[in-house]
């Protein structure tokens, strides 16, 4: 097992190196040092200020030297400071992680339960009119842009019904729930259509297996077969598909956080995009990839542990 984990970690090194090179090409090579200085200092900045910036950032050095420096900086998580707020980036990301996790994790779990429930129910009534209508409903849910969901649910839940605050966030024990309830609900609805459809397909595949036929032939009830046999076995392929996507889900809360003024990672990023804050975007690209690569490894290891048929060599 240990050697398997080590081998998986070693495979990740070239991928990570590739990501770093891509960020280098994007943030250093595509644009001239001039253009980068203009983004940072604005179009009205003086020649002198720009030159000084280029010199202090080492943008005038030869490319190979810059690349080595770039790799060193990212590998040691030395992201520097934000161009706009002046705060250290590691500090910004650490404080932003809390609120983001408070929304994405419960949102993910609630969404998982809702989608799995819906999918299992659809498999239970499979090929009926109800099943087909629900599938159509899921496709319809997928066809609405996230922005519209957020605008609509915020308008209904917070502005019209006044059940929830329209915006804001504060740590206040159980009271925090007030602020995150509506964002969590929106998070759930955003992914429901796609997930339910995907899980239905997984469960349908599972239900055609021999062991299901055997169980049914032995007289095990339909509900029991679905609730224990199919659910358990389907969960294995389901988890592999979803856990790896977790870091990408954090990006899904990007818009939600911005709409509800929640000071999480998503909001930091939206702000950076709107103000062309390149260091923040560079760090986000790198950290996002890092999280994705590691959750992939985690998934593989969990998969290997859960399914004895998987050989580790």
């Amino acid at each position, binding site marked *: 097992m240990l050697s398997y984990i080590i081998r998986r970690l070693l495979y990740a090194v*070239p*991928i990570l190196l*590739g*990501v770093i090179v*891509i*960020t280098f090409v*994007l*943030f250093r090579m*595509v*644009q001239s040092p001039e*253009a980068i200085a203009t983004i940072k200092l604005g179009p009205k900045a003086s020649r002198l200020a720009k030159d000084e910036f280029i010199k202090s950032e080492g943008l005038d050095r030869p490319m190979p030297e810059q690349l080595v420096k770039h790799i060193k900086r990212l590998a040691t998580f030395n992201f520097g400071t934000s161009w706009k707020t002046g705060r250290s980036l590691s500090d910004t990301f650490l404080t932003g992680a809390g609120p983001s996790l408070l929304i994405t994790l419960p949102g993910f779990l609630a969404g998982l339960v809702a989608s799995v429930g819906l999918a299992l129910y659809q498999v239970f009534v499979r090929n009926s009119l109800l099943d087909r209508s629900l599938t159509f409903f899921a*496709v*319809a849910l*997928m*066809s*609405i*842009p*996230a*922005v*519209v969901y957020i*605008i609509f649910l915020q*308008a209904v839940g917070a502005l019209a019904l006044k059940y929830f605050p329209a915006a804001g966030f504060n740590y206040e024990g159980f009271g925090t729930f007030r602020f995150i309830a509506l964002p969590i609900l929106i998070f759930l609805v955003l992914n429901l259509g796609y997930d339910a459809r995907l899980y239905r397909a997984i469960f349908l595949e599972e239900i055609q297996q021999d062991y299901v036929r055997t169980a049914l032939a032995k007289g095990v009830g339909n509900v029991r077969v679905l609730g224990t046999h199919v659910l358990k076995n389907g969960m294995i392929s389901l988890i592999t598909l979803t856990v790896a996507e977790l*870091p*990408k889900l954090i*990006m899904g809360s*990007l*818009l939600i956080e911005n709409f509800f003024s929640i000071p999480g990672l998503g909001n930091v*990023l*939206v702000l950076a*995009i*709107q103000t*062309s804050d*390149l260091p923040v*975007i*560079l760090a*986000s*690209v790198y950290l*996002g*990839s890092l999280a*994705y*690569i590691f959750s*992939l490894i985690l998934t593989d290891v969990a998969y290997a542990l859960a399914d004895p048929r998987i050989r580790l060599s």
Partner: protein
Amino acid sequence: MFDHWLTQDLLVLLGMGLFVWVLWSGSHHERWQRAWIRFRQDRAGLLALIVVAIYLFVGALEVLQFPTKNGGTRTVLDVFVSGIHDERSYSAPLAQAHLDPSMGNLKGLHLLGTNALGKDVLVQTLKACKTALIIGGLTSAIYLPLGTFFGILAGYFRRWVDDVIQYVYTTLASIPEILLLVAIIMVAPGGKNLGTLSFALGVTAWVGLCRLIRGETMRQAERPYVAAARALGQSHARIVTRHLLPNVLHLVLINFVLGFSGIVLAEAVLSYLGVGTPVGTPSWGNMIDGARAELGRDPVVWWNLVSATGALFTLVLSLNLLGDALRRAFDPKRG
């Protein structure tokens, strides 16, 4: 050069011609003929196809332009809606007067009201079909050939070719999509325009297709007909173009339809973030983005949001249903 009306007209005709050519060359293939027989009986799929065709038609009307006497250009759609006058500012659907009573009565009736600049919302919604069509078309023109080419290459030649291609797309796929999109659009030398947007979407979209085509090519390459072609002394190039490509082309078609819906949705999100369609271009994303401020007004201006969402939703839903119907038609066992 790209801004010239003639170039744009030619590109649209070329794109549609290419699409027809793919369908026509596919019609000789037995798999496509069988799929068409099944598809004809799929009512949901046929309905979705008709809706998509209407959108394509409206979009094409807005893209096709001709020069006017005073040096500008007009689109064919402009001619159709030339009877609709601009107002001064917001007005509700079918209203007689402006939303702000001090601005007086309207010149004409507007089915879906007018926007902040007094433009008819229905016309703007129709014009936005063009933007969706251009972004979707350009992006597909970038990622479909890329994904198909590298997918077949990796699946057919295996070994180091496969390793290199897999490495490249695994690396790209490990960067969260929205971040890669934003990063590419922000640093692109051309600035924020439809070309940059399509390029960024194309770079992120080819990975999924490439994976799919690679897998299918591997399966096809195991089949005896490929071995037979090799034994008869056919060149690699001929096997790829004559045997493998036609056998994976249906996947490209399905991916094209489903991918198009994803691109239209992505445009809405990117426009909200400020890295999507340039401000001033009529697009559903821009209309939805503007709705945030409009909903806070009193009385509420909802018709922009509803029109744009309605148009976008109908297109994306139809594309999704069409894609599913195509998948069922080509692969009845899985459907």
